[in-house]
Structure formats: structure tokens, C-alpha cells
């Protein structure tokens, strides 16, 4: 065993890279579910965002436009879900699963010409003075912008849900859509907006994998990250701060266990391998021992005349 071969600065950097895609996707889904909609299509929207972002970044040479396109692609796909569930009043579970299958297929079609292509490099933030602080500098101040975007999104969503009027309306719609409707809130409009936001976030998360974490396009490359994000929202009992904790725990333990394996630590590999799931679930379940629960209207179909 040689723990000295693990460089803590590099480890923390990879931890953030591993956590960011599921963090952003899970935050989007959190908003969707708080509005009372269960969208199981996260995986499909992520992979669609991954290829949209990748293709546009390659064509324009700009990762920025890649991420913009990823958000647009994810949102566009989620619009399909919104049409199905909010206007055609289709079953949300079935529609979400269909969205995942559709997204996987669509992305492999779109990605035909992009296998083996190298995406443009995404610059890391380089803050002159702060970045030079020993240890703290490289750990805290020298990542790509999306890492900070993910963290800012946590704060923004938390504040939005807790302190703003929009947040209150969103929660009202999610808790009791009939009451919200009786109060004059546009239930369907609020939910469509939430679904689009969730789609955009999932798209960004997917593009983070294809543009920064791997970086390449491979069919099916999200490989279940969307499902992890979905599970995370539930285990985090629909709270933004806990989603962040969960995502960083999951990403962190995943990267840490790979590093421990490479360093030859004498813990059986089976335990190391299951540790990300185990530890994340354990911590979040213990934390949710308070009385937090799912939004009351989650997954229920709303129709104004009923």
C-alpha cells in the first residue's frame, strides 16, 4: 500500500469533475419534482444534451456554445414530455421511460459522425492571485466554469424555493395542484416551465460528461448517470443542499475508490466498488430521518375540470 501516491489536490479536482454532471442533472429534476411532475427521462435528456453539446462545440470550436446547445437540446426533448403529460395527460412514468428510450436512440443517430472526434478544450478558470495560494488555490479556484455553475445553481435553487414568490408558487403547485388552481395559479404553465428547466439542466449535465469529463462522444456514454441523479433527488428528500451533498459524496467516493485501488490499499475491491452507492444512500437516509416527504401531487395528472 502506498497512499503517498495519491495527490490530494488532483484527487479533489477529479472529485469535482465526477460530481458535477449528476449534480446539475439532479438539481433540474428536483425543480421538476417539486412542481409535482415525475420525469423519468433524465437519462434520455442527458445523453441528448451530451451529443448536442458535443456536436455544436466541435462545429463552432466553442465549448460555451456547446453548453448552450446542450441546454437547448435537453429542453427541447423535455418539451415532448411536457406535451405528452401536461396537454395529452399521458401517464408520467410511461412517458418518462419512453423519453429515455427515445433520447438514447436519437443521440446515437445524431452522433453518427462524431465518434472519435476530439472536442475543443474547455478552459479552466485562472484567477491570478487566488489560484496561486498553495493547496487552497488549485483545490478551490482553478476548475472549469461549470463546476462553479453547479454550485451556484444549488444556492440559487435553494433560495428560490425558500424565499421567492416563484418558489412558493412552484411548491404550491407541487403540493396541491387543485388548491393552486383554485387560487388562480397556472398549474400547467408552471409545470411546463419546470419541465423545460429540468431538461436544460439534464442537457448541461450530459454535455459536461462529453465535453469535459471524458471528453469524447460514445453512444450510450452517460451509462446510467441519469438514473443516479433521479435516485439522488429522492434520497436527498427533495432538498437542494442535500442533493449537492449526495452528488459530491457519490462522485467523491467513486473517484476515491478508484484511487485507493490504484494505490493498492488492502480493502477488498468488492467493498470499494459498492462504497459509492452504499455511503451515499446511508448518509442521505440518516439525514432524511426528519419528517421530509415527497411533494404531495408528485406524479399525479392535473386536469382543470376535475
Amino acid at each position, binding site marked *: 500500500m502506498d497512499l503517498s*501516491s*495519491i*495527490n490530494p489536490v*488532483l*484527487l479533489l479536482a*477529479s472529485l469535482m469533475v*465526477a460530481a458535477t*454532471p449528476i449534480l446539475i442533472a439532479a438539481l433540474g429534476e428536483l425543480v421538476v419534482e417539486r412542481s409535482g411532475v415525475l420525469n423519468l427521462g433524465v437519462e434520455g435528456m442527458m445523453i441528448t444534451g451530451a451529443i448536442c453539446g458535443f456536436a455544436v462545440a466541435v462545429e463552432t470550436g466553442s465549448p460555451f456554445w456547446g453548453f448552450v446547445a446542450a441546454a437547448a437540446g435537453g429542453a427541447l426533448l423535455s418539451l415532448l414530455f411536457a406535451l405528452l403529460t401536461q396537454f395529452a395527460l399521458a401517464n408520467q412514468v410511461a412517458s418518462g421511460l419512453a423519453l429515455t*428510450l*427515445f433520447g*438514447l*436512440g*436519437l443521440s*446515437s*443517430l445524431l*452522433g453518427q459522425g462524431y*465518434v*472519435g*472526434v*476530439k472536442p475543443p478544450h474547455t478552459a479552466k478558470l485562472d484567477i491570478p492571485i487566488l489560484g496561486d495560494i498553495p493547496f487552497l488555490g488549485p483545490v478551490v479556484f482553478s476548475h472549469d466554469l461549470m463546476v462553479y455553475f453547479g454550485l451556484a445553481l444549488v444556492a440559487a435553487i435553494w433560495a428560490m424555493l425558500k424565499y421567492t414568490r416563484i418558489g412558493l408558487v412552484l411548491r404550491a403547485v407541487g403540493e396541491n395542484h387543485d388548491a393552486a388552481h383554485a387560487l388562480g395559479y397556472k398549474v400547467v404553465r408552471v409545470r411546463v416551465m419546470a419541465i423545460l428547466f429540468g431538461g436544460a439542466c439534464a442537457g448541461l449535465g450530459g454535455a459536461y*460528461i462529453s465535453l469535459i*469529463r*471524458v*471528453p*469524447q462522444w*460514445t*453512444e*450510450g*456514454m*452517460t*451509462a*446510467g*448517470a441519469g438514473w443516479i441523479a433521479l435516485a439522488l433527488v429522492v434520497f436527498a428528500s427533495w432538498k437542494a443542499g442535500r442533493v449537492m451533498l449526495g452528488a459530491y459524496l457519490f462522485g467523491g467516493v*467513486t*473517484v476515491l475508490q*478508484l*484511487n485507493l*485501488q*490504484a*494505490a*493498492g490499499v*488492502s480493502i*477488498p*475491491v*468488492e467493498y470499494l*466498488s459498492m462504497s459509492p452507492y452504499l455511503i451515499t444512500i446511508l448518509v442521505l437516509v440518516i439525514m432524511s430521518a426528519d419528517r421530509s416527504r415527497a411533494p404531495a401531487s408528485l406524479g399525479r395528472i392535473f386536469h382543470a375540470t376535475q
Partner: protein
Amino acid sequence: MKLTKFLASAALTVGLATSAMAQDKTKVGFIYVGPVGDGGWTYEHNQGRLAVEEHFGDKVETVFQESVPEGADAERAITQMALQGADLIFTTSFGYMEPTLSVAGKFPKVKFEHATGYKTAPNVSTYSARFYEGRAVQGHIAGRMTKSNIIGYIASFPIPEVIRGINSAYIHAKKANPDVQFKIIWAYTWFDPAKEADAATALIEQGADVILQHTDSTAPQAAAEKAEGVITFGQASDMAEYAPAPRVSSIIDNWAPYYIARTQAVMDGSWQSVMTWDGISAGMVKIGEISDAVPADVKAEALALKDAIAAGTNHPFTGPLKKQDGSDWLAAGETADDGTLAGMNFYVEGIEGDIPN
């Protein structure tokens, strides 16, 4: 799309069959563990499927289902394919072994071919390639090329096929460079680009400047490209899009001739249950072009090793070799028998760490 496409094509074939044609077509099914666009393992199996279509034209019809999880769900997918009227089904991952046997028991008239397994039945054959021969060539290049003397190895599941590859690469890396050390990560997945990239990054951060992979995607190549001065090898497929560096060579699985021969056997009615295990000499394992990033003398040595293996004059597992625990395995000049290789569950002497159970 896969499922929907699959169902649509299923519905279509049912329609065709009832409208009284396509009776004499031989239907060949394929079960894949990853997407056909993984750029590695599944991609090459799919190339084999396309070769079957091209070779037989109208006489054959192929169907496939991709990203089928290993385990219980595989049984459902294989059953469905048999119910659709497939005459021959290739199940292309180790984890399909039990599901294949179980379905084969229920469909005695359908022929099954299971890749990389070791259990047969009257209507189940197994086939695999001697990837370890290619690993020996990779190990030699790796040992000669490493500057840090640390070689990273991304392993998938602790099954004999993977362990054989690690041992073979290690033996030949060690021969080329006695100071070499292997760092092994078990990813517990065949296909998860993000995790594969993370594993490659972890190995590189810990000093590895050569990455060998036994997972299916090209993600470790991309991760190595991001870091500089790291070399990799294409796995299962050439992965030429990452040449000349980081990818300096590759092991290519060439399934097409086998798939064509077995389909022909079903057509002729001469199909029998066999265990096929071919290597470089039979052309089932190919070594991808060694790029210019490799010095000429190393390239020449690697090619000589390849030729010797193909000619049968150099077996990659030739004694004296000891097991990891120090006990004797092969005496000087002795070569490993296929039985031991097929069930290999130990590291050779010098590799650190334990094999997960």
C-alpha cells in the same frame, strides 16, 4: 430507440412470415452487452454481424439487441429472440453464460453460440479468442516504452479471461523491463465511459504512463490524450482514431470468419456443439498497426514476438513461472495447458494486490 426498433423489426418479421415468404431465410440473432457504437468490443461483434449479412445476402436475416445487462434480464432478451424464430443466436458476453444455457434448454432446435464462456450443451457452442497472445505483444511494448515504470491496467470483472490478460501482459512487460510495476483498477463494468475515464485519470495521476484497458469504450484513450506523454492500446477494436498517440497499437477481435462459418454450418445442417479458441495464427486476434510513436527497434521486437506466437514457437505462458504466492507453476520451458488458462484464477509472481472474488 433500440427497444422500439427491435420491436418494430420483430413486428415486421412476423408480418412477413405470415404473408408466406422468408421461410428459407436463416435468421441469426446477436445479443450485445454494450451499444454497437462503443468503438470496442460490441462494435467488432457488430462488424461480424454485418459481414454475415454481406456474405449471405438474401439468404440470411440478422437481428440484434444491444446494451443487454448481464444477468436475469439477458434471459428475457435471448428468449424473445428465440421466440422470434432465430435459428442461430450469438450471445456475446461472458455474463450471458447461464442465461444462454437456460434458454437453450427450452429451445432445443435453436443453435446457440456463447462468447468467452466455458459451458456447452448439445445446442450450445462456445467461442473465444486468445486475447492473451495480443496482451503479450502489448506487455512487451509497454515494458519497453514506460519511463515511470508504472503501468496502469483497467480491468473489468475478475473472470479468467481478464486475469489471463493481466498475467500475459505482466510477464512480457517484466521480461522487457524488470523494474516494471502494475497498478490494477477493477472497474466492475464493461461499458461506462465516464467511469473508465476516471479510472484512467486516477492511474495517470498516480504515475502510470502506459494504460492498458480491458473495458469496451474508447474513454480511457480520451483521458490519456488529455494527459500528455501517456500511451494506450486499442482494446477489442483498432481505435485508430486515437493513433498515432496515445494509441500505439491494439488488439483487434476478428469475429467475421467465425460468424460466417457457423451460419453456413446451420444452413448446411452440419452445425455441432464445439469449443473454439483461436488466436493470432487463425486470424481471430489481430495486432493493430504499431504507430510511429513506438521506436523502430521496439516495433521490430514486438512484431517478432507476434510472429513467434503465430508460428507456435513462443507460447506467452512459458516457464519458469511462479504463482503470486511463490508456489511453482510452470517449470523452465513448460507451457501452460488450455485447461489451466481457461480457468485461470491467480496472478503470476510479481503482481501486487489480490484478485477480487
